[in-house]
């Protein structure tokens, strides 16, 4: 993907937010235990999280990525417990 490409079309991005390494993830642990009980003994770890699909209008990709960084830091993720990843879908 070229970040310098000028684009007037809407962009579609995806933001994944999950708990940082070392932060207790009770949901992930419970799901993993359930899978173990179901017989999936080779599943060793499950991490839970959430994702957001975000449409942006008109911005260049680089600006859009910057905006999303800001939005993640301010609202979508709590940096005390969570990390985030921003990906462009379209």
């Amino acid at each position, binding site marked *: 993907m070229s970040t310098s490409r000028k684009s007037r079309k809407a962009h579609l991005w995806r933001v994944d937010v999950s708990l940082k390494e070392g932060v207790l993830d*009770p949901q992930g642990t419970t799901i993993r235990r359930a899978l173990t009980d179901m017989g999936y003994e080779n599943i060793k770890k499950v991490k839970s999280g959430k994702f957001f699909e975000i449409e942006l209008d008109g911005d260049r990709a680089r600006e859009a990525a910057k905006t999303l960084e800001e939005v993640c830091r301010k609202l979508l993720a709590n940096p*005390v417990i969570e990390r985030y990843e921003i990906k462009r879908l379209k």
Partner: protein
Amino acid sequence: MKFGVITFPGSNCDYDAYRAVKEVLGEEVEYLWHQDRDLREFDVVILPGGFSYGDYLRTGAIARFSAIMGAVKRFARSGGLVLGICNGFQILLEAGLLPGAMLRNRSLRFVCKYVYLRVENNSTPFTNAYKIGEVVKIPIAHSDGNYFADQTTVEESEKSNRVVFRYCSPGGELDDRHNPNGSLNFIAGIMNSRGNVMGMMPHPERATSQLLGSSDGRLVFESMYSYLSAKGRREVS
């Protein structure tokens, strides 16, 4: 002496907090709307429990951007007393007025019951009416009360005596069985470095009368009252 209780969309313990101030202290108390911006005439601001903005995204994550939160930050900077109860505590964490964050309860369940708390610090505006080490019975009601902070932050809070309440057994021992949500170091309530902002998951406003099962929460309100009375006397003399 004037208390303010903030109503956010989704707050549901605002009346309980309002009533607790009226009934326990008989002092002036007023509701504040989340869009208000002026707290100058208040001595105490209470952020009550509830489900502000439906707990969407994370508990307290949206409420912290309410118009009133700018005023709450200025109010705290000027030394005003800020008490966050349950969802109010979660909002204070998201706003960065207190350190740390809340995770989902270890059990993944909403836990609503009386718990025992040990008073860890009674030299605060919120707990001066308690005895140090005293065990009190106050109810909790939450899904996300599993206190977490990175190691440096927790050590800093411990070292500077900012942990105000810890979950404990009826006898005052710290054991896992009596940690209702998995909180780090059994933390149930903490304050900021200046000591004028406190957050606690348990609901002192729901424990103001034996009729409700306990009156141990009254002392949180009485503590603020005696702190402000003493402060008033100092300012006058």
